[in-house]
């Protein structure tokens, strides 16, 4: 149900002079619904992530409270709520308090424009992609705020790394989405969904890979989790946070994969499209779920890159790849589009063929240039002459 529908429904019962009240009430109801749904989803997701991580790590994971430990998130929240909320004496109190909120709000706001059905909660927003890119960019600010205001060196390290990394990775992420925008001919998310005769993951596999890599950096998950990097910085930018503020940081952090999964589902996996008897919403959830699982899989298994390597990967690896994709799609569109600017499914099939070849070739080239290569050592190592074990054997 979108904003317009709800507004019209309520508008029938009240005189026209107090329309603003209806407007406010509608907005409140909607935001309440979205926030609660999202927080609940995130709570469930934390349970899922911890259970799955447990499986990956050959242990069990939380299984004490509720069936299969399903109530574990509630226990966690209660624990964090009753903890003392410590604000360091030297901290900048206003900024320190604001930072968790600034991190959480963009994640929630993005969900307003995701088309879960025919349209999103806000109705047909015609600048969906732009809105998402703009709003998610705010989390850089939140991390800087948190790190700077805590007056902690570890937090500052995390924040500075975060600023550099998040800004860098926004470029390939936006560029990878441009290919989709060219193909769909619109920046409205609903139009992108409806234009996907063939899912764009097939038409533009390169864009999808770049998007996933850039997005996992944007939400600072492994292998790009250097903002927090437990083994180096303790907890990174939220080192000094405790209690409810820490809970909000964690909430925002766990919400990020859900946001990414939702966006990837809409842009690359055809959103609510699916085979008919099953409703679109179910398809949406299934697709988002599989994206979340892939992100989790990567997180559970991969080591972390170093700061300079992460920046190098963004500018030397993902940036050229996204430009290649953008360029190839633009040329293809120029050659294959119909007079009215749309693309038929047949032309898309041609694109699929070309783009997969382009993807494989470009990734192989980039990987050869940037990668570590195979071990060059052919000969066994030569023992140094500094210590001669054979000589002392005779003693």
């Amino acid at each position: 149900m979108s904003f317009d529908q709800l507004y019209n429904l309520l508008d029938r019962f009240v005189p026209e002079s107090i329309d603003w009240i209806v407007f406010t009430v509608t907005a409140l109801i909607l935001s309440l619904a979205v926030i609660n749904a999202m927080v609940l989803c995130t709570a469930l997701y934390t349970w899922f992530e911890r259970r799955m991580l447990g499986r990956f790590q050959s242990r069990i994971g939380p299984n004490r409270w509720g069936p299969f430990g399903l109530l574990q998130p509630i226990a966690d929240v209660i624990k964090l709520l009753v903890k003392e909320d410590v604000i360091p004496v030297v901290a900048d109190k206003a900024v320190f308090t604001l930072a968790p909120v600034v991190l959480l709000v963009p994640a929630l706001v993005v969900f307003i424009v995701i088309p879960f059905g025919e349209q999103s909660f806000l109705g047909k927003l015609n600048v969906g992609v732009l809105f998402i890119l703009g709003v998610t960019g705010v989390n850089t600010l939140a991390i800087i705020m948190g790190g700077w205001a805590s007056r902690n060196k570890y937090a500052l390290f995390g924040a500075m790394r975060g600023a550099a990394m998040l800004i860098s990775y926004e470029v390939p992420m936006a560029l990878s989405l441009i290919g989709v925008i060219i193909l769909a001919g619109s920046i409205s998310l609903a139009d992108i969904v409806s234009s996907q005769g063939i899912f764009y993951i097939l038409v533009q596999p390169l864009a999808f890979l770049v998007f996933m890599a850039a997005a996992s950096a944007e939400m600072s998950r492994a292998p790009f989790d250097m903002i927090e990097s437990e083994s180096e910085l303790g907890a990174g930018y939220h080192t000094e946070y405790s209690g409810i503020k820490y809970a909000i940081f964690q909430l925002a952090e766990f919400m990020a994969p859900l946001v990414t999964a939702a966006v990837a589902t809409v842009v690359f996996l055809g959103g609510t499209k699916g085979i008919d008897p099953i409703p679109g919403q179910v398809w949406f959830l299934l697709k988002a779920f599989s994206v979340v699982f892939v992100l989790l899989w990567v997180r559970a298994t991969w080591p972390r890159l170093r700061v300079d390597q992460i920046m190098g990967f963004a500018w030397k690896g993902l940036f050229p790849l996204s430009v290649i994709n953008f360029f190839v799609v633009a040329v293809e569109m120029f050659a294959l589009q119909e007079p009215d600017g749309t693309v038929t499914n047949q032309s898309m099939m041609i694109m699929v063929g070309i783009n997969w070849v382009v993807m494989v070739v470009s990734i192989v080239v980039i990987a050869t240039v940037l990668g570590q290569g195979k071990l060059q050592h052919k000969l066994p190592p030569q023992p140094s002459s500094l210590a001669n074990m054979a000589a002392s054997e005779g003693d």
Partner: protein
Amino acid sequence: MAIKTEPITINMGPQHPSTHGVFRLRVTFDGEVVVDVEPVFGYLHRGTEKLAEERTYVQIVTLTDRLDYTASMSNNLAYVRSVEKLGGIEVPERARYLRVICAELQRIASHFISIGFMLQELGAFGTPLMYCFRERERILDLFEMLCGARITLSYMRPGGLIQDAPEDFWPALSILMESMPEYIDDLEGLVTSNEIVLARTRDVGIISPELAVNGSVTGPMLRASGVQWDLRKANPYEVYDRLEFDVPIGYQGDTYDRYLVRVQEMRESLRIIEQCVEQIPEGPIQSEAPFFVRPPVGDVYDSIEAPKGELGFYLVSDGGISPYRCKIRAPSFINLTLLKDMLVGWKLADLVVIFGSTDVVLGEVDR
């Protein structure tokens, strides 16, 4: 325009997830780059050497368990060998073989911890560590069969062992021996050619052979630098002279070589155990050493190749039931001497990995 910057000093530790216990590094950073390191230790000092002067020779065995708590067997072995050398105590053949089996099992367990934590510090949070710990558990299960304890074992005594291995130990050991090579292959398949692991560890934290020898570094760290030096070969103790094994070395002494040397050493340890199981004779496991050992007046130094390097005990006897002085040469402590040479110029993220690759245990560093 050059922006004015100033170095930032951070206390890493004593409460820090990557310091392997309670180690403190006062690190000065220029941005992310390490410009100066000053290690501060002693947070886990328990006065082991002084406590040893107040205890009988047998009681000290329990103190040695707590030095390098990931390799109690090796500590036990190093200590009892010193006492036996000091007191001229004979050790039965079967006990010698069992000691070697235990020491090599302990080496595998210790290297599992080292590799697991190194990967943990690389950022692969939890998973590799848990895989390594799962296999280590199986070795600890074997130790439990031998002496009832899993970590602080106290299995060895001057003159032998506390008890013979039970009947079920040998089949359990052979099951482990069968499955372990496969597991090490799996680990290598996941880690050795991983792109990120290579990017993070190759050419990072290099120790040249000259530097390593000058810093009297021992163990896998020395061998990773290309110096082929292993006390098991250079000064064979127990039954190592009858066993066939290679001493793996690395190419250039970077973090990656240290990892590779450890993996290869685990394979060599399996080879050694296999031969020991074939050769082990029947017989007693304890010679007729008195409970209160009274070695003659004198002093002795004996060392073995512990998982971390050369572990030595220098004992001085005044003829009484407890040593007059007990000095421990702890490999972890001495391997840390090159910390500054390894770390300066690398980044914060490399710092934890290089420090992890030195494989220190704070129980041994602080003693």
